[in-house]
């Protein structure tokens, strides 16, 4: 069995308003940071997983992302995979 470390990034789709991101952008500007054009908040999920090769693990992660980690009505996802 191969072991992999996977980092999944879940983001609100660009068309969905992110009020938490807007509030954080406002606070960033209050802090004195200049030049911020956009700030949006997402989630990062770390998974350690075993499987027979990268393809099998990708299939499992695709299922998890599509059915659980992200709600594809409002969110997009992408992930990176590192063999341990």
């Amino acid at each position, binding site marked *: 069995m191969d072991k992999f470390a996977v980092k999944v990034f879940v983001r609100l789709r660009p068309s969905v308003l992110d*009020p938490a991101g807007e509030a954080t952008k406002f606070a960033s500007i209050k802090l004195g940071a200049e030049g911020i054009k956009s700030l949006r908040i997402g989630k990062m999920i770390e998974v350690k997983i075993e499987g027979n090769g990268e393809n099998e693990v990708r299939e499992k992660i695709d299922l998890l992302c599509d059915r659980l980690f992200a709600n594809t009505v409002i969110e997009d996802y992408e992930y990176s995979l590192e063999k341990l």
Partner: protein
Amino acid sequence: MDNFTVGVVVFPGSNCDRDVSWALEGCLDIRTKYLWHESSDLSDVDAIVLPGGFSYGDYLRCGAIARFSPLINALDDFVKSGKRVLGICNGFQILTESGFLPGALVANKNLNFICDDVELDIVSSKGGWFNNGDEKQTIMLPIAHGEGRYYCDSDTLKKLVDNELIALRYKNNPNGSSFDIAGITNEKGNVLGLMPHPERACDETIGGTDGLFTLKSLILK
């Protein structure tokens, strides 16, 4: 109809289950039965309410984990059989997460948890959930949510409008919902999801009775 029983689903974190049961039993004399979320036997209930609350602590997304409970898995056949399912607040979030209703509920536009009474326009009489005889009707119901902003893409919105699936719209949109949507039904009309709480408006002494009809509609065939 004497034995008609409404199942009130209890998830870890549900907090409106007793209110729903009280409103049905105390105000409408309709029998209820609590259904623990691990149960998948729905044979002795005739309609189901998914109550408000914070199932599974709202972890990941509101309603996202509840979707995988045995009870929600069993709900598919229940809905297909034409029996009625009412999702209130967190129950509405669960119904969208599990695909029984389109769209999603996301954080309120102003990020506030909003606890208020709101005026609602009844848009569609599909399913008879609000059809109490008046042609065009406005009702007042309480809302209490932090993530009640209904969102759907433009194609879905068109489908909702064309098929008369929008049940309720806010008169003064409090949370930024697309098209002021406060509640929708499925195409058959036997599933209703809404953010306002009809169970909290069932007695004059607590501020109104505009929620009574919706709860009473659970017994419609």
